[in-house]
């Protein structure tokens, strides 16, 4: 019996030791024999949205391609810190200051949430690594709504009674909703949800009228006929849905896509930043990545390195700021 007791104590101590080890990693990095920097131990990928959403899918596919294709040998752990239009995630990332074993996915909310003044951090505080692609929005209705084409959609919106679901306040889908509201000259009630899953469910159940989503989150429902695609927010029609018109050709000058990229915590060591940037470049050229992520989720290839990405964001940030100001979200 004493043996069993000591075994169970041993397991507990082991858990403790493993836990300590993980937290100590930051301080115990070693250069390998070539002098090239490499992370020592596991890496954390953080998604600021719930599992099943765009960030989560990207990071999970990324981690599987990186491991299976031998681009990164370290074990990768994907974590989710959903809430507050990525504010929770940004707070978590900020708390990792100086860490070299932690990167996170960024999209429009990474600009809009700080712009609204809800967090003390702005994108300039974090370490740019790479932009990986651009994700178009698709406007969808429930197939039982009686709306089946753009003309009927236009009439419906102009009645001024539509509820429009999206993820988080001031995020990409919210800004698109506001642009539609402005362009159509009709009132739209925007209902914020916590993640893509909830938004899709709300539309499927017929609880809201319209959603704007990234293609992957609703693909399944478009194919089985539960949802009808009404319009896309890109410059040109999408290859996958050639019959779906763009908002621009329908007479509303709205082009709105979501960038998808990777950032590191504040003051990430430069050697680590360069290492991740290199790995991301390798990833974006990988065929598996193109077929399992970009093509599968209808995301346009658009690699940018860290400094390009940062200047792209600086420009975009002032566009967003302008948008939010005109729409009265910020003063």
């Amino acid at each position, binding site marked *: *019996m*004493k043996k*069993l*007791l000591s075994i*169970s104590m041993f397991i*507990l101590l082991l*858990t403790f030791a493993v*836990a300590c080890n*993980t*937290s100590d990693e930051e301080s115990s990095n070693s250069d390998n024999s070539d002098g090239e920097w490499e992370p020592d131990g596991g890496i954390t990928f953080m998604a600021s949205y*719930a*599992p*099943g959403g765009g960030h*989560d*899918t990207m990071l*999970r*596919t990324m*981690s*599987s391609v990186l*491991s299976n294709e031998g681009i990164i040998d370290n*074990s*990768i*752990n*994907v974590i989710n*810190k*959903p*809430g*507050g*239009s990525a*504010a*929770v995630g940004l*707070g*978590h990332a*900020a*708390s990792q200051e100086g860490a070299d074993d932690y990167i996170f996915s960024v999209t429009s909310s990474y600009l809009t949430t700080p712009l*609204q003044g*809800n*967090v003390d951090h702005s994108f300039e505080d974090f370490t740019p690594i790479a932009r990986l692609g651009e994700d178009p929005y698709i406007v969808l209705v429930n197939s039982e709504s009686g709306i089946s084409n753009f003309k009927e959609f236009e009439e419906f919106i102009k009645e001024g009674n539509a*509820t429009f679901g999206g993820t*988080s*306040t001031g995020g990409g889908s919210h800004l698109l909703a506001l642009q539609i509201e402005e362009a159509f000259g009709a009132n739209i*009630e*925007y*209902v*914020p949800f*916590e993640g893509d*899953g909830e938004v*899709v*469910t*709300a539309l*499927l*159940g017929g*609880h*809201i009228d319209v959603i704007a989503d990234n293609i992957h989150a609703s*693909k*399944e429902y478009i*194919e*089985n006929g*539960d949802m009808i695609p009404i319009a896309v927010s890109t410059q040109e029609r999408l290859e996958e849905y050639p019959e779906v018109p763009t908002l621009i050709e329908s007479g509303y000058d709205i082009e709105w896509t979501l960038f998808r990229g990777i950032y590191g915590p504040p003051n990430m060591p430069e050697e680590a930043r360069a290492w991740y940037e290199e790995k991301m470049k390798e990833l974006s050229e990988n065929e598996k990545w193109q077929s*399992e992520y970009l093509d599968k989720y209808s995301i346009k290839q658009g690699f940018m390195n860290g400094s390009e990405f940062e200047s792209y964001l600086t420009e975009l940030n002032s566009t967003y700021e302008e948008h939010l100001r005109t729409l009265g979200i910020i003063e």
Partner: protein
Amino acid sequence: MDLFSNIGLGLDLVLNWQVLLLIFGGSIIGTLAGTLPGIGPSAGIALLLPVALGLPAGPALVFLSSIYLGTMYGGRITSILINVPGDSPAIVTAWDGYPMMKKGQGGIAMGISAISSFIGGLIALIVLAVAAPLVSQWALSFSSPEYFTMMLFGFATIASLSDKNYIKSIIMVLFGLLVGMVGMDFISGFGRYDFVPELYDGFDFVAIIIGLYGIGEVLFNVETSFKLNIKKENVKLNSIFPKWKDIKKVTASTLRGTGIGSFIGMLPGAGGTMATFLSYSTEKSVSKEPEKFGKGKMEGLAGPEAANNASVGGALMPMLALGIPGGGGTAVLLGALIVFGLQPGPRIFETSADVVWIIIVGLFVANILLLFANVFLIPFFVKIMYYGQNYLGPIIAFICLVGAFSLSYLVFDVWVAIAFGILGYILKKLDYPTAPFILAIILGPMAEDSFRQSMIMSRGDYSIFFTRPLALTFFILAILFLVYPVIKRKFKSNK
């Protein structure tokens, strides 16, 4: 779609020694992960995800879902033995399980809860096998107004949980709402009381329960000499297994718990936890001796345990059929499905029938294995407790602190656990109930969010809560639950 040929397909895939070994390994790992507070289902599955990635999709997902089911069995062990719930659905288990342990009936408590878990888990899996695509539509009919009235119903059940002092219960509910409010509000995007970055996400709920129950109990027992009532004769085999008449006594509770667990467990968010609370208050309401609840009543243990494990099958339905995770554990499973290139959704039953049915049949087998494993583990755990009872205080404190730290490797969570431990001690000393507090932390934020979403949807019209059939049903249930204890008391005093 033919059910029997599907089950045949699943059986065919499960019945080979490699898959069976994976199910067995997953179940045992899950039980151990569930036993350690702070690990629980989501971390347990996430920790072994890299191992599973090396396997083909079907066996890997069977392995991961066996871990999930195993944690549900494991979570109850520390609840019963040392009053430390490993995860939120195991909180209720501690309310009557730990008092039974203190009475020297720990073995019986573990046996009863293992059997109820088994029955609950099994029936819910049958429901899943027969009706998943159909039943998951039920989850679709739920939206913000339904969630809000369901949360109201949840609050109403607090009334039946607290029979002694209503004022104290109300104070605890308000305090719970305050604690639950900390963190980022996603509807407005503004933070509340988030003075340090660790609080952006709010308090870690598991750190709170580890502190409140585990550390609080240790502190309380420092005053008296902390000894469990385990005598030599209690360790003998015939007194640690439940008797047939005990099992018969709790059959009705188990079945009620199963029903509640299968349906409520399906709802995203607080599914599993809500189900256990609802089952407990249902048992207390229908019982002829409600005053014995919280002091080691078997029905109060069996119902929620059945509900807890039934919610596993329940949560898998919307996960597979709609791609919506019902809780932390299914969220990680959903991630695994996506990594394996499967698209959860209504068509998964056709496009990936092999994977779906290997999971369902595999869980069926895991459930049977887990029952045996858990019953045979009883003597082991009872003996550990017998030999360890003199050192129990330090051991529990150690497990609690390590558990709190391992939640997200933050020392902050250790301080949270200690702070709530001191609070738990004070509350116990002054005889304040903790159930309303815990329930308010869970329900408060969800009630608030769904209320505001409903109000946006209806443009400020309150009738949205009364014009939708399901919402109205929960509203009426809430009123019934509030009025029922009063009527029952009147009825009794008239007699």
